[in-house]
């Protein structure tokens, strides 16, 4: 169905990975100058389709057309040459290259056969100056933070002068200001007639920036709609195929004694942090990206050093030299960086889930494998991990399902304090609600939960109490009651994050 109205036509695309059918006869039609949202649960096949378009993988069947001409790609270079660029879901920095080198990789400035580094740096600096960034063309990529790397990838994709840009969860590690910056760019591109495919699990963004939306479910195409007139609930039921109940299933449970307390904690990126969490309480932590929330929690968990300050668990002072000692004491943490700190993708789901829980599951020196298998199976089922068997390895899982496996690890550990850093990053609506329900269950059992989230609605919806971070310090504390009573709104918290909030 070649139609010159569309810049990209994908028809009848199917793709299987070994036994899993990731895409079944799906279609996607994108108009020039539109922002086309692609929605679907984790593992719906969004990234897979995009990888087919960019030539990273080859579809088993189906045809594609770009700008009215049949389109065949053998690799990303073909896509780039045809005018398609992509921001990948998994960040992929070149650690040892400079910003300029990495933005212009494969598009180097040359004089004859030699590189023209000067001209390239200048050209890069010009591009960077258009964005308000704190690094320059010659900064090494490894010195950038996650969010900065994400911005470089955005800049890189945008600077290709492509006519179609694919953005696969570009905002998952950005905060609201940076997101706004990205939206500025998107609007600008739109006005130049560039088409954008926008993938995100954050509904608000879809409504803010997108023109049309296509929905996938379980590797099949569901429908394409104009954003005008479509409601959030409609989209969700298209995605999930069932109704997702209340958005935040927060149940208030009995808040008990103080379980964990820190006093005047200082580290490289945070200063003078004091707070306490009680049994049954969910403590939310809000703040801008880079405000030091993760660093604080990493330090508490023993991944980073603490320069001064004290920690108390159940009234006793403790120190955590490394995660092992933290886990032993009953403090567990789900890291925000799933790929690096979450899973061994090469090993089976079972081995991943049981990894931190082995010491308790030995008979003498030998592991009790029957018990291990059974417990892991139960944990995986409880979190509805979508996999054929727990003996499959991590690679075969979609991002959201990987996140569930990480959570399952700590369910078995049954900790006293559970730290969740962005527990629902990259997780679809359905699974998100599962995870939230689970958090409430844990709290009800008397666990103390600390949750970092960059999604304000999530923090506000789930927390009994919220700490707001600003530049490594706590800039405010909010009780759930204040939110329920509408004393505090999203805007107020944002203001605190920017430290414009003056407590008078």
């Amino acid at each position, binding site marked *: 169905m070649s139609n010159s109205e569309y810049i990209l036509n994908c028809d009848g695309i199917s793709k299987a990975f070994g036994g899993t059918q990731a895409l079944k006869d799906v279609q996607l039609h994108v108009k020039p100058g539109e922002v086309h949202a692609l929605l679907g649960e984790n593992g719906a096949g969004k990234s897979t389709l995009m990888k087919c378009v960019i030539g990273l993988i*080859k579809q*088993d069947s189906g045809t594609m057309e770009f700008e009215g001409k049949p389109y065949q790609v053998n690799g990303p270079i073909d896509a780039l040459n045809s005018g398609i660029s992509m921001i990948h879901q998994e960040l992929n920095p070149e650690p040892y290259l400079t910003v300029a080198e990495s933005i212009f990789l494969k598009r180097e400035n040359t004089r004859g056969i030699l590189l023209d580094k000067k001209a390239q740096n200048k050209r890069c600096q010009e591009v960077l100056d258009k964005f308000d960034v704190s690094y320059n063309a010659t900064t090494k990529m490894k010195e950038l933070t996650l969010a900065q790397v994400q911005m470089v990838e955005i800049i890189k994709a945008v600077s290709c002068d492509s006519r179609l840009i694919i953005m696969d969860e570009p905002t998952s590690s950005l905060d609201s200001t940076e997101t706004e910056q990205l939206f500025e760019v998107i609007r600008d591109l739109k006005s130049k007639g560039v088409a954008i495919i926008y993938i995100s699990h954050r509904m608000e963004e879809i409504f803010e920036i997108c023109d049309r939306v296509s929905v996938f479910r379980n590797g099949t195409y569901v429908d394409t709609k104009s954003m005008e007139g479509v409601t959030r609930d409609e989209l969700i039921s298209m995605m999930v195929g069932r109704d997702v109940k209340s958005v935040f299933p927060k149940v208030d449970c009995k808040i008990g004694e103080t379980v964990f307390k820190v006093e005047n904690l200082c580290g490289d990126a945070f200063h003078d942090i004091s707070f306490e969490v009680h049994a049954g309480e969910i403590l939310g932590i809000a703040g801008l990206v880079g405000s030091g929330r993760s660093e604080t929690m990493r330090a508490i968990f023993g991944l980073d050093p603490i320069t001064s300050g004290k920690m108390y668990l159940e009234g006793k002072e403790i120190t955590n030299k490394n995660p092992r000692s*933290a886990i032993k004491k009953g403090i567990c943490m789900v890291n925000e960086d799933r790929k*690096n*700190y*979450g899973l*061994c*993708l090469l090993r089976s789901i079972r081995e991943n889930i049981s990894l*931190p829980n082995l010491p308790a599951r030995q008979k003498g*020196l030998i592991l009790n494998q029957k018990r291990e298998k059974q417990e892991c199976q139960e944990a995986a089922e409880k979190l509805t991990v979508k996999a054929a068997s727990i003996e499959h390895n991590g690679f075969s899982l979609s991002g959201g399902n990987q996140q569930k496996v990480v959570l399952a690890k700590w369910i078995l550990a049954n900790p006293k304090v559970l730290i969740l850093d962005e527990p629902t990053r990259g997780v679809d609506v359905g699974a998100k609600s599962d995870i939230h329900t689970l958090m409430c269950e844990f709290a009800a059992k008397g666990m103390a939960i600390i949750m970092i989230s960059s999604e304000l609605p999530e923090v506000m919806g789930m927390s009994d109490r919220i700490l707001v971070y600003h530049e490594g310090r706590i800039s405010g504390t909010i009780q759930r009651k204040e939110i329920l009573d509408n004393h505090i709104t999203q805007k107020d918290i944002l203001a605190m994050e920017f430290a414009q909030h003056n407590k008078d």
Partner: protein
Amino acid sequence: MSEKKKFYQTDEFRMFMGKYGIGVILIFMIFVIAVMKPRFIYPSNILNVLTQISVNCLIAYGMCLAITTGGIDLSVGPQLALVSVLLGQFIVVRNMNIGLSIILALAATTLFGFINGVLIAKFNMAAFVVTLATQLVIRSIAQIISDGKGMSMASQAFKDIYSGTLIGVPLPIIYMVVISVIMYIVMHWTKFGRYVFAVGGNVNAAIASGVDVFWTKALCYTISGLLAGIAGVIFTSKTGSAQSNIGVAYETDAVAACVLGGTSFAGGISTAPGVLLGAVIIGCIYNGMNFLNIGSYYQYMTKGIIIIFAVLLDMVINKKNR
């Protein structure tokens, strides 16, 4: 891509070959050689091959641990030499008790294995570089101890370590079986084994799950040192001579056994039975080449081609989808 899948592309076949492929290759090899030279599968020759591979097999188990954590242990060859010259010093020169001598010599290689481990795990140095360097250092020490000279280990009790039998089975096979069982349990049924795989698969995730990466890695190289030491005792008993120039390039066959046994150089993937099978294949290659009268110039080539072929087959069968 293609509509109809060839039989070797079906999932069943791949699963089967992924698990047992190496065994299939071995059986095929044995079959071919046996058809040409029936004596190849006489029990006496089978015992012979198994006896021969014992040294390489023990080294390969240690190598496998190192590779699984994402490293390598190039120092195993000189470790054999170190054990050998120490045994010479203890037993021949100082006339010490054989058992005690062996324990002391093994303690030395274990210590060097531990040093490898500390350098690699504590200072985060590349295993290739560290073990390349300790390879030189250990060889040096062995030469200094022996002054480069050989020493005859005439004691029959000592020679019996290699040439003795138990209910008709040569002792080296017994050692190999015992250590294979232990390694199987260690790698697949203990906490430590799990940690080895986790560290090799994703070291940061392992840290965040409370794994003590330092001790896990250090222990792997320590075990490798110990196993290389035991291999050295067998070797010395076999040749009846304490020498500092033995074991040159022995890491090659150990690595080959690991690779044939499905150990991934990226780390995180290996199995103990795979390594054993790999060692048996290497043994059959050597023994088979002699049976088939393959000229000396072609022996290296045969080994090289079989390694490439086996890995290639593995790649094609367990092909990553892209």
